[in-house]
């Protein structure tokens, strides 16, 4: 198991370094920083001095090492568009995105798993077919259309819920949260539902398929033969084994949620990292893009690692060391 974790850690490191490299490669394309900092009438000596000061005269690998070193400390320089430190910009936006993604994940899990189990146990009934058709729609509808439809119905027509921004927020030592005010909760409902629809449909379909697969196996028949009540068979035995692939997909989707949040945040003008990133892409604001990229890659890598480790917790078969050779 230790070898497995070490191998995954090494892989994660390689991924992070390649993402950092891609981010680093973006910088030369935004023009010569020396020229833009000094202006037209600087002497060549001044240029050379600044070049040396910025470390731009160093060989390429050294510059990259310098970039990685700064990135590790969270320093990505100044935003080209806003002229503020990128790290500050991102830190301001991070809570909004994380709260939104978390809310969406909770909705997707709390609704998706029970519905999936229901659709599997009551296969062929009208209500389970409705759930399946709805989930097909949920997988094929683009996120931004779902958001627009929700706004049209609940904000424009019914005027029940607000459609943009986070509403009132409370600051807790640098972390602004909308979860402590009623207004914040109201603002959260539509974006969170929008973001969760795709994942919800995915989880529903996955749980149903896995559950049907598991219910066919011998140990379920055996459990029934022992005379266990349905409830014990379904929830004590079947559901447990269903959840192994669900954990993987959900874990990986948690990363996807943060990426998909870009769309939801644009539709609802939610002041999160996604909105920041999309504005950075529009204006080719490379430092912000680079920082967002590295941060999202880091989140992904961590999520993947945690999912791998969760496997060991959930599936005892993996904990037995396999004989040498192969994996």
């Amino acid at each position, binding site marked *: 198991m230790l070898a497995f974790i070490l191998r995954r850690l090494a892989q994660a490191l390689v991924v992070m370094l390649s993402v950092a490299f891609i981010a680093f490669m973006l910088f030369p394309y935004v023009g010569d920083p020396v020229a833009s900092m000094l202006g037209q009438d600087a002497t060549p000596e001044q240029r050379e001095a600044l070049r040396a000061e910025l470390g731009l005269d160093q060989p390429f690998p050294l510059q990259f090492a310098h970039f990685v070193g700064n990135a590790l400390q969270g320093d990505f320089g100044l935003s080209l568009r806003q002229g503020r430190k990128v790290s500050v910009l991102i830190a301001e936006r991070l809570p909004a995105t994380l709260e939104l993604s978390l809310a969406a994940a909770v909705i997707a899990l709390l609704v998706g798993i029970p519905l999936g189990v229901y659709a599997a146990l009551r296969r062929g009934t009208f209500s389970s077919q409705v759930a399946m058709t709805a989930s097909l729609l949920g997988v094929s*509808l683009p996120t931004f259309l779902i958001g627009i439809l929700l706004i049209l119905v609940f904000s424009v027509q019914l005027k029940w819920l607000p459609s943009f921004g986070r509403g009132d927020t409370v600051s807790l030592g640098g972390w602004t949260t909308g979860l402590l005010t009623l207004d914040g909760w109201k603002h959260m409902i539509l974006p969170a539902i929008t973001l969760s629809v795709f994942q919800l449909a995915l989880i529903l379909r996955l749980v149903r398929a896995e559950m049907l697969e598991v219910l066919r196996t011998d140990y379920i028949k055996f459990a029934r033969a022992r005379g266990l009540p349905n409830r014990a068979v379904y929830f004590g035995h079947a559901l447990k084994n269903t959840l192994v692939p669900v954990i993987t997909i959900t874990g990986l989707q948690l990363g996807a949620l943060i990426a998909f949040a870009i769309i939801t945040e644009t539709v609802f003008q939610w002041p999160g990292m996604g909105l920041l990133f999309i504005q950075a892409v529009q204006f080719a604001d490379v430092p912000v893009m680079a920082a967002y990229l590295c941060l999202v890659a880091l989140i992904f890598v961590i999520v993947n690692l945690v999912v791998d480790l969760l496997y060991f917790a959930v599936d005892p078969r993996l904990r037995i060391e396999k004989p040498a050779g192969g994996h």
Partner: protein
Amino acid sequence: MSSPAIPSAPGALARFFDGDVWYSFKNSPMAIVAAVIAALCVFLAVFAPWVAPHNPFDMAALNLSDARLPPAWVEGGSRKYLLGTDDQGRDILSAIMYGARISLFVGVASVLVSMIVGVGLGLLSGFAGGKIDALIMRVCDVMLSFPSLLVALLIDGVGRAIFPNAHDTLAFGVLIVAISLTGWVQYARTVRGSTLVERNREYVQAARVIGVKPSRIMFKHVLPNVMGPVLVLATIHVAAAILTEATLSFLGVGVPPTSPSLGTLIRIGNDFLFSGEWWITIFPGVMLILIALSVNLLGDWLRDALNPRLR
């Protein structure tokens, strides 16, 4: 040793209508409905300049007094504009047809590019094995661990940084590359898997023994045998590519504003949602859903029809 002659066109057609695929199509109402809708959408898109009632890009024909008219069946609507008009007096129906044309073009083009890249790398990976295989598959793993939308956004952003004042053709190129670079992985993996199976078959060994060049074996003998699953993937992928394009355009980083796709239309319409002009954004959305859903359903059907295990 030469590959069998390609059957002449009428023979191939007759064989198709006699074959299992056509039979399964005739007996699947869902597939027929999806095919009809998809065909209609494609027809309206491809022939937009000829079948659209108005030309939305003809500035001279635009009349601002016709702006923001609701659909014909709503009070205040005009028969002249069946689905209403947008803020500049453009006919929504015509704009949708022209928009679908652009969406389809970008979707199909990026699927073609990712298919060529993916199939090529997959063949190479499965055929060469060893270090090349390991390298390509590692890259695939990394690509797969990021959501495609993020990769497309990133490539698009890089494209914008490299060519800050890109003209329209280049902007289209960057967009197509961005979408296709996120899609090739699935082709590469599928083709690699089938190639690994095929390359141990007798016909490949026989070809090798009589000294056929590896590149010829790869393209002439192995390639035709691994294309089945690729076609299924490509069908479903067209829908995905169209949705990705729509999303990018909705986010404002897709097609150039001078040639609005369905996503651009939805983005524009979104600004008028609160003043009650829902038709500007909803109708392009409906068109997008119709295309994506019908193509997806067709892809699902094709997958089942081509899968011998399900027969």
